[in-house]
């Protein structure tokens, strides 16, 4: 306690620990504990040494002037410590004439406290400096929080702006019309598409903020149902519930789709968004697709086609009603199931698997397969399957159109059975004809053969007439058989027309020789007239042309008892290499009743039943004629009046031939007989009577012959002896002619591998000749044969064989490559004849000069020509001479030269013939 001051200094220290007292000389006489802490050594120091008065402004610092500041807040600045400021007040103690400064340092942060080495406990408890510091600290933290929040807000604002810009751009560029309204129907956002749809004559920007309420009324005229449009908008706005894909129809035909999206934030309604899309094209397309679907659905229904669609896993994704009808399964039962598992038996699944593989490759296909219906009934369906693609051309499944072909399959099976039966019947018929033909021909062969031989012996007139009658009857029988065989051949399509050169003059001459005696016998005139315009040679099948004319002329003579039969031939169309000939066969016979006109070309039909009895015949003649004319691509027609006669007109197109390669072999018997005289012939024949007939001819022709009674003996004979010709019967016991021929051709010990073998067979049916040739035979002669035919076949075979054996050349290869082109053939021969003599002289010169190089060079040049002409042997000799050079003999060469000269002579003849 300072009695002088009469103040308890301890208590003063508690309340004002930074206080100090000054006396009238302004000397510090006492300090508080905290002031002493921060400004030690102040006692006795002058106030002016320690402090400046910052506030209030004091010009002269004196005791009185400081006393005058008693009613003011005084701010002192320490002169001894930087930045140390005190806030407080002066108080006069009159008794001691001292001034008390009661105050404390003014600090605004804890850092300042630390700086001055102060702690809060240096301050009086009541002092609010610590509160100030804390408040200031709090303010600092608040400021930091605010800074952080402001930064966050700025960042969020930027993000919102960016998002808003992006959304705005997006909305502006959307193909849909967009209108965003706030809760008061003020426009927040609108895009150009919206303006276009609703024909608003403003751009979107100035519309922002505008009230859109009245616009509904203004735009309602655009819609087909304006009142409903307005009412619906009111309802939507009132309900504030989302609306999606609502269709609106405009008066201009457009269709809009509308969405309404209400906007709520914290359950508070903030406005709404309208979206309008122009779906006119889409809806129209959908309508078209729907119409198309309906159309095809209708078609499928009407066509009774069952349709399903499956996905890539083969699960059924759609099934149409007809498919359910077909299978018995409802659409619900089929969906999401595998058709393969449900409808197909195990053995049919393989078919499906193959088809599914095609589908995976994007390929369609049509196939037939058996299915099993729900009731277990098997059905046949034809399926047209095709892959289904999406817009990116990916395969997303397949579609299958099913057509129930069960009935068709049944019919097909019936037809197949019928066809099999028919084919079997045809085969039986063929077999029957073959057997019949064989069985009839064999005895006829004997009858005709022996009749011929008998006719050549010395007989009485009556006996000769009887023999003629026998021959005539046998020939008639043969005629019938031939007709039957011909119609059989034609019906089976086995007749092909040959392309020979036909000498029409000879043909007419033969007709004259054949039919004039018959006409004479009936005392009717027989006239044959051939136009001078008719080409001399035509190309065709002479046998078949003759068959046509024979049938018509023999009929004309047969059915004419008085008057005449006139035959004329004339061209009706003619070009450089083509000519259509018209054959007229006109008679004055019994004629044909008009009612029978339609059936005269039918098989086994004669104009009148009486005819067959009176005139004979099979009724096949005209059928054969008609078919042959058809094969010739010609026409046949007739006119006829009963009792006035009949006129047949045949028109056939022919190619004109420039050359005559016809062979006339019939009238050269004497020459032929000389050819075969003393030749060795093996006759293979099981029928004794046939053997008798044949051997009688062979003996007549002075042939040396052996006989084999069947194939086995024939092979044995062929292995033991050389023959010039083998005559081979076909149908024999133990071994037939085909088999025997094959063995003769192939056995190692056969002496007759190349000997001509001529088939003699009563098998005159279609294809028989081909069978014989295929078996290795060279030619074919049907029984009964005429002696001259047999003679000609034998001599031809011998000549051909000799030619092949002995010839220094062979034109077979050249003929083959000429392929029937005579010009090529002629040109080739001409080249050979022109070049060979000169080159051969060059070759001889090279030989004489012993010039191996030249010889070989020239030999090489002529090699091709010789090989083309089949003169292989001759060329080998030329080559052999070359290899011996320079030792070759000129004599050897001259022998070859002679051969080549002979070849050239032959070829000149051949060329002239061509």
């Amino acid at each position: 306690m300072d009695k002088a001051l009469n103040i308890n200094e301890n208590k003063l220290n508690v309340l004002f620990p930074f206080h100090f007292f000054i006396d009238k000389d302004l000397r510090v006489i006492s300090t508080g504990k905290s002031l002493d802490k921060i400004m030690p050594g102040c006692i006795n120091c002058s106030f002016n040494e320690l402090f400046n008065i910052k506030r209030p402004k004091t010009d002269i610092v004196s005791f009185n002037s400081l006393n005058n500041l008693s009613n003011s807040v005084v701010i002192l600045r320490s002169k001894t410590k930087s930045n140390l400021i005190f806030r407080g007040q002066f108080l006069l103690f009159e008794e001691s004439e001292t001034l008390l400064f009661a105050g404390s340092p003014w600090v605004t942060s804890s850092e300042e406290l630390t700086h001055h080495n102060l702690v809060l406990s240096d301050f009086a408890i009541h002092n609010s400096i610590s509160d100030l510091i804390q408040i200031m600290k709090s303010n600092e933290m608040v400021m930091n929080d605010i800074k952080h929040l402001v930064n966050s807000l700025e960042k969020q604002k930027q993000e919102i702006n960016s998002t808003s810009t992006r959304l705005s751009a997006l909305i502006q560029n959307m193909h849909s019309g967009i209108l965003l309204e706030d809760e008061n129907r003020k426009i927040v956002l609108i895009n150009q598409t919206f303006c276009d749809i609703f024909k608003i004559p403003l751009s979107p920007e100035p519309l922002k903020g505008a009230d859109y309420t009245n616009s509904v009324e203004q735009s309602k005229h655009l819609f087909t149902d304006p009142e409903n449009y307005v009412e619906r908008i009111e309802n939507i706005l009132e309900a504030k519930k989302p609306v999606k894909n609502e269709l609106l129809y405009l008066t201009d035909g457009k269709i809009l789709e509308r969405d309404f999206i209400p906007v709520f934030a914290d359950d508070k309604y903030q406005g709404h968004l309208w979206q309008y899309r122009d779906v006119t094209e889409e809806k129209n397309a959908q309508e078209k697709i729907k119409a198309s679907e309906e159309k095809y659905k209708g078609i499928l229904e009407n066509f009774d086609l069952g349709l399903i669609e499956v996905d890539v896993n083969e699960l059924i994704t759609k099934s149409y009603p007809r498919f359910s009808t077909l299978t018995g399964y409802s659409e619900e039962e089929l969906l999401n199931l595998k058709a393969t598992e449900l409808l197909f038996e195990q053995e049919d699944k393989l078919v499906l698997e193959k088809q599914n593989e095609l589908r995976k490759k994007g390929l369609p296909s049509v196939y037939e397969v058996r299915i099993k219906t729900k009731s277990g009934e098997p059905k046949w369906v034809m399926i047209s399957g095709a892959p289904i693609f999406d817009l990116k051309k990916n395969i997303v499944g397949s579609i299958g159109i099913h057509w129930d072909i069960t009935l068709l399959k049944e019919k097909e099976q019936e037809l197949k059975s019928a066809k099999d039966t028919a084919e079997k019947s045809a085969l039986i018929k063929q077999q029957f004809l073959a057997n019949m033909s064989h069985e009839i021909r064999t005895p006829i062969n004997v009858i005709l053969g022996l009749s011929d031989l008998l006719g050549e012996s010395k007989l009485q007139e009556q006996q000769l007439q009887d023999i003629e009658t026998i021959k005539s009857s046998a020939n008639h029988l043969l005629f019938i058989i031939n007709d039957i065989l011909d119609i059989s051949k034609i019906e089976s399509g086995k007749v092909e027309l040959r392309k020979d050169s036909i000498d029409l003059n000879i043909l007419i001459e033969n007709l004259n020789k054949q039919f004039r005696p018959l006409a004479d016998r009936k005392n009717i005139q027989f006239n044959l007239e051939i136009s001078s315009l008719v080409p001399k040679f035509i190309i065709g099948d002479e046998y078949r042309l003759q068959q046509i004319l024979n049938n018509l002329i023999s009929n004309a003579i047969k059915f004419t008892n008085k008057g005449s039969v006139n035959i004329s031939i004339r061209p009706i169309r003619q070009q450089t290499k083509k000519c259509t000939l018209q054959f007229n066969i006109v008679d004055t016979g019994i004629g044909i009743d008009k009612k029978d006109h339609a059936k005269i070309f039918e098989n086994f039909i004669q104009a009148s039943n009486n005819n067959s009895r009176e005139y004979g015949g099979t009724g096949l003649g005209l059928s054969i004629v008609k078919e042959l004319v058809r094969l010739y691509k010609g026409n046949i027609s007739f006119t006829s009046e009963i009792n006035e006669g009949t006129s047949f007109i045949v028109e056939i197109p022919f190619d004109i031939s420039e050359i005559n390669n016809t062979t006339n072999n019939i009238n050269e018997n004497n020459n032929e007989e000389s050819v075969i005289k003393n030749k060795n012939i093996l006759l293979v024949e099981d029928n004794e009577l046939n053997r008798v007939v044949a051997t009688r001819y062979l003996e007549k022709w002075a042939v040396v012959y052996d006989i084999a009674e069947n194939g086995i003996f024939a092979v044995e004979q062929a292995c033991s002896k050389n023959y010039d010709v083998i005559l081979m019967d076909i149908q024999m016991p133990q071994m037939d002619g085909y088999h025997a021929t094959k063995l003769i051709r192939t056995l190692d010990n056969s002496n007759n591998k190349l000997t001509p073998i001529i088939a003699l067979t009563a098998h005159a049916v279609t294809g028989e000749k081909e069978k014989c040739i295929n078996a290795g035979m060279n030619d074919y002669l049907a029984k009964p044969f005429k002696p001259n035919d047999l003679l000609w076949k034998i001599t031809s075979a011998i000549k051909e064989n000799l030619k092949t054996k002995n010839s220094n050349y062979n034109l077979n290869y050249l003929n083959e490559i000429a392929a029937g082109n005579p010009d090529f053939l002629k040109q080739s021969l001409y080249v050979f004849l022109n070049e060979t003599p000169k080159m051969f002289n060059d070759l001889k010169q090279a030989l004489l000069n012993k010039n191996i190089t030249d010889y070989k060079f020239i030999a090489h040049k002529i090699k091709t020509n010789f090989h083309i002409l089949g003169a292989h042997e001759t060329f080998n000799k030329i080559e052999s001479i070359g290899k011996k050079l320079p030792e070759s003999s000129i004599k050897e060469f001259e022998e070859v030269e002679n051969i080549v000269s002979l070849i050239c002579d032959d070829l000149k003849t051949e060329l002239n013939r061509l």
Partner: protein
Amino acid sequence: MHGVVNKAINRLITENYGEEDWNEIKKDSGADIDYFLSNESYDDSITFKLAGSASKVLNFSLKQVLTAFGEYWNLNTGQKQYGSLMQAGCNSAREFIINLPHFHSRVTLIHPKLTPPEFKIHEINDKVLAMYYFRICNGLTYLTDGLIQGIGKMFNENFEIKITQRKYHGSDRDLFELTWQNG
């Protein structure tokens, strides 16, 4: 709870475990608060829920979590933001603790919206202090424990803390007994 405490919890988690775990803890606790304002008063339950969720997500006991929160506040956030203030406040942990009632009385006046806890200190002798802790809500005893430990570390002093009374055990307060080994 004062915002700074929750903020400190936020920092403790994000600094040590990452933003993702903090978001998960926040989501689990249901505390839909993006940013804790320093001077804002938050319900104590938020702090407690955050501690519970942190325990669950980070697989620590609640005691560990709360203690860690307390320590962290004093040693990191407190030091960084109030360091000089705290140092300016007192010269020792004992002085600091003795000063706590004054400090919280001032806080009551400065932040009238806050309801800070109340402390009562009995100086048993030179080495022992009894600290009574009064708070409305339960469960934050260990947070206080952590805070006191943090004070010890801040002044680099060793003292033993014993919790001799727990509020939810029937008492109206928590009682911490603090004993200095070396006076």
